[in-house]
């Protein structure tokens, strides 16, 4: 039971963080330095 809770939390957390990652990067890009600069200009 404990294992199931841990795994379930981890998966939900992964989904939330992944969505957040894509939402946070407005330009939808990776962590590439060149484009994060451009993201900044866009704001």
């Amino acid at each position, binding site marked *: 039971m404990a294992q199931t809770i841990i795994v379930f939390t981890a998966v939900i957390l992964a989904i939330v963080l992944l969505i957040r990652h894509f939402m946070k990067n407005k330009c939808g890009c990776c962590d590439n330095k060149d484009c994060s*600069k451009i993201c900044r200009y866009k704001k």
Partner: protein
Amino acid sequence: MNENKKITVAIAGNPNSGKSTLFNAFTGANQHVGNYPGVTVEKKEGTRKYKGYEITFIDLPGTYSLSSYSEDERVARDFLIKEKPDMAVNVIDASNMERNLYLFTQLSELDVPVIIALNMVDILQAQGKIADEKALSSLLGVPVFSTVGNKEIGVGNILDAVISCASDPQFHGKERAKVDYGDDIKEETDKIETLMFGDKSIVDLSKKWIPVQLLNNDPFAVETVSGFKNKDAILEQAQKSGKHLEEHFSKRADVIIAERRYGFAKSVVKTVIKDASAKKIDVTEIIDRFVLNKYAGIPVFAAVMYAIFKFTFAASEPVVNLFGMFFDKLGSFARSLFPEGSVQSLVVDGIIGGVGGVLGFFPLVLFMFFAIAFFEDSGYMARAAFVMDKVMNKFGLHGKSFLPLMISTNGCAVPGFMATRTLDSKRDRFITMFALSFMICGAKLPIFALFIGAFFPERRGANIMFLMYLLSICIALGASKLLSKTVFKGEPAHFVIELPPYHLPTIKGLLLKMWERGWLYIRKAGTIIMLASVIMWAGFAYPKAAENPDLSEQEYAAVQIETSIFGQLSKFLAPAVKPIGMDGSIAIALVSGLAAKEIVVSTLGTIYSLEIVDSEDAEPLKEKIAADPKWSPLKAMTFLIFCMIYMPCFAAATVFFRETGSNLKWLALMVIGNTAFAWIAAFLVFQIGTLLKIGV
């Protein structure tokens, strides 16, 4: 000027003049990157505490002039005029002094207080020449100091000069050399200047500069004048003067002005540059004679690319194997650490199996970045763009397209798409963006390394990788040709590129560049790939299959994958990928790759990790794939061709969408077009290969 002992210094200069290297030498690590308001031009600022002063350096964008022809030029000019730094350090490439002095002529006309950093004097010396800095200083009326930015030679002299000029009340108003445009032009500029006399708005600007720029058709000058009281009279006079000069010289006024500025620069160079007694061999010229040769240029480029792959594969192989073994051992260790169950599977099969599969190729990526950085820093990549211009033109691409294509190949398609902004015509931009969606980006590299490592080992690996890159270039060129003949008809614009002198790259510079790009790879593995691995693992691990005592552990693992959500989903996808030799779980891996292409590898890592139930069986992913009977060299090749061509990841597709004017039509063409093309190409390869029994 220096209240509280603070000094602001703008660093101005041509691209490739070593401006940023000097900026780094001045400021060390005390710098930050921002942006100029409202534009997409980077603003680098740094401070240096020196002899009781706090000097703020602003690295202006590299420009050839201060007109309004590009955003960079506008930004540099506006900063000098509006922000009014205490002075500017004009970095001049000593080995290209004539062209570099063109910018100085404009700084001088703008009455900007200037110190000249005569940079790269070592290269000038290598060309068998020396620059007389005293003569240059007296000719131009500004302090001049020789520097070698990458060796930090002369940096102290510039800093001392900044302080002494800042403390000198005469420095600002000092007369600096200006171009003598001749009586005819002077007569006309005087007429304009007279009309401007008395206008208070002109206080901020040089009275000499505006009339010249009006004759130069500079929109900024026109805009400035439009705020003046007698703007109509000024603009009318400027038009009349321009017309008069054109009739007189049979040339446009802006052409005559540019000629006079270059004439000035030429005469300065003639006076200050002297041949050294013992003329040294100009290495750049000798290498270029061969590298830029009409016939040898392209084979040399191909050889360089081949050398990059050969080096990458040969040098990284032992380290990649070590990394693979490390993650296997880590998996076994973690398996022993956690009690058997879901958490153990999540950590071992999901996280270590997934992320480890991608991180296992970290050394390969590092070696590749190192090799590419070597050729970039040496000055060869500019030559490659020059050599490739002719080929690119034949396929409807522009010479400038080379840079975005290389950025995409060396790293990521996202900055590649962004870099197409350097292309002036919409047609060239769009074709380049479509072309670069086919390139093998850094994220696809682990997929290629994995399958090439599994099925084409030893020496053939580098050759196959090189051939795959060539194939991606051919596909990109073919697609460009097709697009230029159908959707985007027209001729590419002309191409001008500066060829900097060759440098021997510094180890520190190469390692920094390699690490900067490599770090992104690790960050991506630790964030998006790890998160996706957890989700992919859950998709293959749940719901749980009913326990069956008749099945062996191995058989049960296979049933589990089949029962899982993704296992069920893969049954739907299976018919679509069967004609290209793949099964449903591979299709799932391909779909997962849309979040980031490395996830194709991490998903395969998770699937194969779930299938292995005995920790003793643990072996690197490529060995598991090589041993799996459902794969063959032909299937691996088909899979790689599909991966090469099918639609890019979400991030790249989003940027593509925005950079093509947020038009769904182009996005649909790329997403559907690329994927359909990938399927057809993979189908042909697989079916023909099966028919001819090649690699089956």
